[in-house]
């Protein structure tokens, strides 16, 4: 590749002003073309995609919206969280063990932006609202609002949006941006459609075009990639893509709870539940640290040894001040490492049964304590 600064400068043709104007004209045409191609900018940063695959409910139906499940079952307890909770929680067994109507409202791939919307637009809007809302999380996930809100995860978030969501826009999509990025994302259509455009371009190249050349359908191409790059084909010492992203969150500047709290959905979730008469209960899940960080904490990097415990203490103090109980399984040795299917998830057999029993036991003790406090 040649060096742009090493061009031989011949006698300039035309005036300097003409050349500057020509350069600007070239730039303007490209930007205008990109803007035109991306269409008009959206007023809201949300889109709806009803094609998102959903899970099966207890009546064997798929794709049943949460509002219908809530209206039909009128649960006393709902459980919210990501696949980390979904893999560990058995709705029917839990219901039997605690003697209350329970409903699993976990969403695979979700994080705090989705949890906030589920609580605000579904659970608090239910009639009657449930008595208890158990929200499962791990590490710093409650105070990282932008995590899993964009890209492929945006469809998940958008499913629970009913109208304008200014707080969602601000915290999940705009809060981490510099002024330039913010302005672009807010008002310039190509920047707004960034994830969509990248997914389309990559999807076309990797599945459609390559599949066409090899004589495979796009679905076959995607399936092949899923097989070849599956987690179980990775070297055991390497983090998976999702784990790497999660680890980045756990290593970044996310441990200052006091500064992260106002920029998170947590205070709003606490307020919404309180105003709707729902007792919010937080449930901290046990992670199995990756093979690079053996579970003996003495081998953890400083962030996990020092910063995370400091964050956890600050979170606990905040929850105590807001009268939000915490069911803490993060260091619970009754959850052995053999129960994990991978770094994040418990296996759906023995572990699910075992964890649901632990949760039922802890929840019943909590309910008894809360009842006793009320009587006092």
């Amino acid at each position, binding site marked *: 590749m040649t060096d742009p*600064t090493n061009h031989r400068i*011949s006698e*300039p043709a035309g005036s300097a002003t003409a050349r500057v104007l020509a*350069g600007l004209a*070239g730039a303007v*045409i490209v930007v205008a073309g990109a803007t035109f191609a991306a269409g008009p900018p959206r007023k809201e940063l949300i889109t709806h995609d009803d094609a998102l695959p959903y899970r099966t409910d207890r009546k064997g139906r798929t794709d049943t919206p949460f509002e219908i499940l809530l209206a039909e079952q009128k649960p006393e307890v709902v459980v919210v969280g990501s696949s980390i909770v979904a893999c560990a929680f058995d709705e029917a067994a839990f219901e039997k063990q605690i003697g209350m109507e329970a409903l699993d409202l976990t969403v695979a791939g979700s994080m705090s932006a989705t949890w906030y919307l589920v609580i605000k637009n579904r659970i608090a809007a239910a009639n009657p609202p449930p008595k208890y809302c158990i929200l499962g999380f791990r590490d710093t996930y409650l105070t990282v609002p932008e995590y899993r809100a964009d890209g492929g995860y945006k469809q998940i978030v958008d499913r629970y949006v009913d109208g304008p969501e200014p707080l969602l826009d601000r915290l999940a999509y705009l809060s981490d941006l510099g002024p330039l990025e913010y302005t672009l994302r807010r008002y310039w259509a190509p920047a707004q459609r960034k994830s969509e455009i990248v997914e389309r371009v990559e999807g076309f190249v990797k599945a459609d075009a390559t599949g066409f050349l090899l004589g495979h359908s796009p679905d076959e191409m995607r399936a092949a990639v899923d097989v*070849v790059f599956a987690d179980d084909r990775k070297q055991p010492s390497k983090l998976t893509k999702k784990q790497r992203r999660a680890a980045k969150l756990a290593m970044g500047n996310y441990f200052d709870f006091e500064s992260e709290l106002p920029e998170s959905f947590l205070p709003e979730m606490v307020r919404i539940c309180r105003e709707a008469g729902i007792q919010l209960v937080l449930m901290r899940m046990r992670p199995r640290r990756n093979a690079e960080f053996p579970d003996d904490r003495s081998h953890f990097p400083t962030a996990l040894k020092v910063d995370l415990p400091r964050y956890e203490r600050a979170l606990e103090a905040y929850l105590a001040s807001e009268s939000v109980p915490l069911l803490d399984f993060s260091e619970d040795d009754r959850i052995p490492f053999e129960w994990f299917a991978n770094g994040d998830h418990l296996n759906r057999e023995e572990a699910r049964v075992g964890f649901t029993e632990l949760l039922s036991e802890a929840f019943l003790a909590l309910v008894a304590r809360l009842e006793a406090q009320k009587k006092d």
Partner: protein
Amino acid sequence: MVFTSTAFLAFYAAVFTLYWLLSRAPRARQLQNALLLVGSYYFYGFVHPWFCLLIASSTVVDYACGLAMGRFPRARHAWLVVSLAFNLGLLGVFKYYDFFAKSFADAAGLFGWELQPIELLLVLPVGISFYTFQTLSYTIDVYRGQLQPRRNLFDFAVFVSFFPQLVAGPIERASRFLPQLEQVRRWSWAALFPALELIVGGYLKKLVVADNVGTYVDEIFELQAPTLALLAVGTLGFAVQIYADFSAYTDIARGIAKLLGFDLIRNFRSPYLAVSPSDFWRRWHISFSSWIRDYLYIPLGGSRVRTPLGFLGVLLVSLGLSGLWHGAAWNFVLWGVYHALLVFAYHQLKLGGRWEPRSRPSRAISISVMFVWTLLGWLLFRTGDIAWLGGALRHSPVGMSGVDGSAAAYTLALVLLYSSPMAVQGLVERLPSAAASSLGAFLRGAFLAAALVAITLFAGDGSNDFIYFRF
């Protein structure tokens, strides 16, 4: 502070504005250099302020050694030894001690001696390999009488710490850079467009090409047993990634230095168009390879040695140490040794030195063959685990069919997709310059805007560090 962070953009905007405001003040040059010095230390100590102590100590020691060599010419050998011992000592402690301690313990284990290495586990100060070589070039040149020792400590300190090229080069020579610092700088509109092209092109290569290709390369190198087809695609991707990443840093460094009135050395010259290993080293990381040539290879007798064995010895030392400079790990040493063997083999076949193919077809063949050798070298370089590579090469199926073939094709398609901006950039650079014609200005303006649009769309959420920061 990294070039791709918002903090750096704000920092640079502030330095740039103040720098040119000061150009109107009396004693402008001194004030501008003082600003560069303060700015450079702020830049370097932004994350770990104690790093500044290291660079300051290197600066003071080499400044003093330079002065002492000038004042006591008969003792200049001793002062050179002081400078070498101090700088290489720092490098040894921070970069290599743990590696050698562990390697020694491992080697002892082979003979049945159980040794527990005492590891220091120090944080590697970014850029230490770069500024150590830069400051050593000063003391060696003064020792050789090729450069007058400098009396102005502040100018010298800016030379060592100049922020655009401090952490990942290019490694400037004192004889080239100090005179620029000692001159008055004047703003030039003519430099603006070429500088912007370097900066925007650099960000394009880093954020769109290197970071995206790197994602897919990582996927392959993290597999337990990739097929040979996947390994080949991963290695090709890495060749694109490392060139895009490193040349991006150099381009941004040169662009932002140009806006401050400095001309930094060019670090790359189409390295994958090399026709031989010697040619490759004249095109790849030029500021480093020329340093090794001038301060190691030639002093060791590389240009005078007569016997093949002697020549091979000089090559193994020079390029083996070059490999070790890149990182304290055996794969880097192997990479250096591999290149030494390549240079030697080509030399024995009378294809070394300045050899050039005579016809176009033979040039095309030479470039292709050399590119394959380069890829094999990158395979060694990228693999942190030699045992894994050995296993992968021995046991992996060829994998041109079924799901593995599809995955290889898929990854290749993405590598090509994200490499395409570099190809476009290469074409645009062959256009008439913006200063030469309105058509050139129009097309280059369009390319700059397209690059910015591509960065907006295809840059990831958080950029990865530049690869050469690790070295």
